[in-house]
């Protein structure tokens, strides 16, 4: 009678141990041990995997390994440089006047830029049921009825797959998809301003979609190939042409984004069939590409798995990099065929503590560093040099530090009557300018970086971060309104200078000179929780240096955005991550016509300066060179003087990598870095076994403690029973 339960327990224990392998806390199946797999994690589930909609870093982590736009960023070179991906070469635009006649690049008659892109032949798509053909050559899964999908729940349930060669038409098709009325491409508005005919094309599609709906065929397949797009055409199997209005050199950077990656029409047709969307079978869920990896498991609740695309052509690892790359071992695989890793497993980790601990146990190959774990992971020398802590070094963990292509800033709303610069009265404008300059000096970003970012940042001297053309290091690059150059370094001006400016602004000792009333300013922020209090106290302290009272207006993110949208926030702190490594992508944040309040543009401070706007129009279309640098210098000087932002800091990214990972160099522009990575799976396996030996004595101790705790109860019970028996 007692045998059965014992067997059950033995079976359960055997299953438990069987699943554990050599170590017990391995979260992966034991059979995956030693496999050529890269392990990573994600915190936010991707919203979109359709390249026409996807625009976030979280999604690019997956999509950039699958989709292949014509261009990519060189993995190792800095400053960032474009190189071909599927294209034969980086296209050089030719210029035409309004009549279509060729003109010189610097001609004032330039009306169009023409990009002709030739892709490499022989590139194949990943295996996919959309390409599967039957014996007669017909596409096998393109005329499915609803009942054919009865037993289909995922893409892998289709027994047959196929492939085909990548063609220029696929790129053209994807550009047309930007205007698809049922998709929401975040760049449609911007691209409509540049790609010839895209706006009209979008209108045409909208009408056609409405006609379909009116005919009772809402959601039916909309064949984009039936409608021509004037500015985009296929020249031959491997070439296509894009006509851009005017000059727009930044367009080449867009050609390195997934918005311009190829999508085969077969995939769109396949997923458009009746019943597919109801089963989550969409292009938004199952990307299809020509890249080194394909998504074989899409479970954003738990894990996403990328596996080597068996049809991938194989790209050679770069032969050159920047200085120091060879010494760092980053050229050891030069010329070798990529990718080096067979499989990439991304596990969902919502909380930082499990993520960090699993990295330390060797179950994730790389990790960022949160503020909580910074002291455990990093030691900063008195010279300011950061290195891994001895504990990390003993495990062979390396630190990779890099300055991001981003900026964090403190904005003054230009429309505000106190701190803004839009007043009609010149004297009032001057007062507000001096007030902003005084606050810019008082806001000690060096202290902020030290306290709240663990030193991970470079104080901003202007909007352009290091690594982007236009940035100037050293004395030439400082903000002379806020800093002095002293002893070979920038020194923030003393608070006395700020107080003098404040007095000149009409607020001596933080009080309005005329009324004697204290100056009260308002900071709108989403920081409201107990954890945010130190940061808010810091802001108050900075303003208190000038005897200015700072009122914090905490609100949720929606309301905050709304205030900024309506130009109702007086001051706020925000940030910007670059889309592409061009100064235009930072300088446009001050372009008057792109005011957030007026036109819903990206100029959140609503800054407006006629000279700046005029220079911006010039600089945005120029090639990098001394002439462009001179204009950027002038624009930066205007910003220094007007101070629409207190330039906060450019964040530094610190990442930790285990010793078994090689070929990893931070690249803030390229998201397709997985193909370059190499891992030493045997070393990882040995390290995991060494670091994760089960410690069994606590189990014995716990059992002993339970027994010791139960002993008085057992003794007491027996005594009672005996005493009852005796009675």
């Amino acid at each position: 009678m007692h045998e059965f339960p014992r067997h059950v327990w033995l079976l359960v224990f055997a299953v438990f141990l069987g699943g554990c392998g050599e170590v017990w806390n391995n979260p992966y199946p034991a059979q995956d041990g030693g496999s050529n797999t890269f392990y990573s994690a994600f915190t936010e589930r991707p919203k979109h995997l359709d390249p026409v909609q996807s625009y976030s870093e979280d999604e690019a982590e997956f999509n950039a390994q699958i989709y292949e736009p014509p261009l990519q960023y060189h993995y190792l070179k800095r400053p960032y440089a474009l190189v071909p991906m599927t294209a034969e070469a980086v296209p050089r635009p030719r210029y035409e006047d309004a009549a279509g006649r060729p003109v010189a690049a610097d001609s004032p008659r330039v009306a169009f830029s023409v990009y002709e892109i030739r892709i490499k032949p022989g590139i194949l798509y990943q295996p996919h049921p959309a390409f599967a053909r039957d014996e007669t050559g017909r596409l096998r899964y393109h005329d499915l009825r609803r009942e054919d999908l009865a037993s289909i729940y995922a893409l892998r349930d289709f027994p047959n797959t196929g492939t085909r060669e990548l063609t220029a038409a696929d790129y053209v098709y994807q550009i047309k998809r930007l205007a698809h009325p049922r998709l929401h491409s975040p760049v449609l508005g911007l691209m409509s301003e540049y790609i010839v005919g895209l706006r009209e094309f979008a209108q045409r599609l909208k009408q056609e979609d409405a006609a379909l709906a009116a005919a009772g065929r809402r959601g039916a397949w909309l064949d984009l190939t039936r409608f021509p797009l004037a500015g985009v055409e296929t020249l031959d199997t491997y070439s296509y042409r894009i006509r851009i209005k005017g000059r727009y050199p930044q367009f080449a950077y867009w050609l390195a984004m997934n918005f311009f990656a190829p999508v085969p029409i077969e995939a769109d047709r396949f997923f458009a069939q009746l019943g597919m969307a109801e089963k989550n079978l969409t292009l938004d869920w199952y990307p299809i590409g020509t890249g080194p990896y394909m998504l074989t498991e899409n479970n954003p609740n738990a894990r996403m798995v990328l596996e080597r695309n068996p049809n991938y052509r194989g790209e050679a690892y770069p032969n050159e990099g920047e200085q120091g790359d060879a010494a760092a071992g980053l050229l050891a695989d030069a010329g070798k065929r990529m990718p080096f890793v067979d499989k990439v497993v991304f596990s969902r980790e919502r909380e930082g503590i499990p993520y960090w601990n699993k990295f330390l146990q060797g179950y994730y190959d790389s990790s960022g560093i949160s503020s909580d774990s910074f002291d455990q992971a990093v030691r900063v020398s008195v010279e300011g040099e950061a290195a891994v802590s001895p504990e990390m070094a003993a495990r062979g963990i390396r630190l990779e530090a890099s300055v991001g292509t981003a900026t964090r800033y403190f904005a003054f709303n230009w429309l505000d009557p106190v701190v803004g610069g839009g007043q009609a009265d010149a004297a009032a404008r001057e007062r507000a300018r001096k007030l902003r300059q005084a606050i810019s000096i008082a806001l000690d970003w060096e202290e902020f970086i030290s306290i709240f970012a663990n030193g991970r940042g470079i104080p901003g001297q202007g909007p352009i971060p290091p690594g982007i053309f236009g940035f100037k290091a050293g004395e030439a690059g400082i903000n002379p309104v806020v800093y002095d150059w002293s002893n070979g370094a920038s020194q923030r001006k003393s608070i006395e200078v700020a107080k003098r400016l404040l007095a000149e602004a009409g607020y001596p000792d933080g009080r309005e000179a005329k009324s004697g009333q204290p100056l009260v300013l308002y900071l709108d922020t989403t920081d409201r929780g107990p954890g945010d209090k130190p940061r808010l106290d810091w802001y108050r302290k900075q303003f208190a240096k000038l005897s200015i009272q700072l009122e914090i207006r905490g609100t949720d993110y929606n309301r905050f955005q709304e205030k900024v949208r309506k130009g109702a926030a007086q001051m706020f702190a925000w940030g910007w991550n670059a889309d592409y490594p061009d100064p235009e992508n930072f300088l446009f944040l001050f372009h008057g016509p792109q005011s957030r309040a007026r036109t819903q543009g990206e100029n959140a401070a609503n800054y407006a300066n006629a000279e700046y706007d005029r220079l911006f129009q010039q600089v945005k279309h120029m090639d990098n060179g001394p002439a462009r640098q001179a204009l950027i210098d002038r624009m930066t000087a205007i910003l220094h003087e007007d101070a629409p932002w207190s330039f906060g800091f450019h964040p530094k990214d610190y990442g930790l990598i285990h010793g078994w990972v090689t070929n990893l160099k931070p690249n803030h522009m390229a998201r397709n870095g997985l193909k370059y990575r190499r891992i030493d799976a045997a070393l990882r396996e040995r390290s995991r076994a060494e670091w994760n030996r089960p410690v069994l004595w606590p189990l014995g101790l716990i059992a002993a403690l339970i027994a010791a705790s139960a002993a008085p109860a057992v003794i007491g019970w027996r005594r009672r029973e005996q005493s009852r028996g005796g009675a």
Partner: protein
Amino acid sequence: MLAYIVRRLLYAIPILIGVNLLTFALFFVVNTPDDMARMQLGVKRVTPEAIEKWKAERGYDKPLLYNGAADGAEKVTSTIFFEKSVKLFVFDFGRADDGRDIGHEIRTRMGPSLAIAVPTFVLGLFVTVSFALLLAFFRATYLDFWGVVVCVAMMSVSSLFYIIGGQYLVSKVWHLVPISGYAGGPDAMRFLLLPVLISVVAGIGSSTRWYRTIFLEEIGKDYVRTARAKGLSEPTVLFRHVLKNAMIPILTGVVVVIPLLFMGSLLVESFFGVPGLGSYTIDAINAQDFAVVRSMVFIGSLLYIVGLLLTDLSYTLVDPRVRLQ
């Protein structure tokens, strides 16, 4: 009995409408359809046209509760509230704001939630009832005193502490089970052991004290004295008589939570990376996904109503005097 059940189920309809209305009001007090669109479309380069298009496609371009521009019944039916709520009553949850089928997500995520919730519930009930009976057995002794002290100490500690402490000791220091993650099939046991254990331990303090109080109240009654006078052993008195008669208050607290086991645990699922319904709800709140939030609130309310009904029905099983009419 059948009439009682039908009547109770009919009562559920106005309750569910009320809950729906309340959820709707609370959600849209802090969120506008524009906010929802912006959350889905991202922060960068979002045009007003894209927002309008997003709203129109999902029916968020209509008035919230009353459509003054419509005619007749459409003044009420052509509103966000009506269109989003009515289908819930036939369990058509529709699509999340990111376009994915909510019903499919719920079906997929129910398994992991139950995999944690059911063993936690069963084991927790067994442990706490046993512990409470033991304390009742040793009532007014130093064992009872220290048992209660331990319970008070345990219930004073935040459940977050149990989770983080448990992960630190069991997974990080002792390397006995994975810190987080989930797998299907037999392999799931490695991932479930720690969250179940922690959930049970975290619940011991408060539940034991509650059951102990119930048992002590029963122990003082005449029938217990009579049982002892008949010479029954203390275990027999406790397990066969006290436990049985204490079932009504126990069932009141226990049966009502059984249906809610489907909903999962927000905290445990989040920290242990379990892809259940608890984490689904948290994700939806963070993403301001009204479609998912209202679906989860609706299911939660429905399950709670079912739980209350089951509680009432269970009374008839443990107490023959109870008659439902």
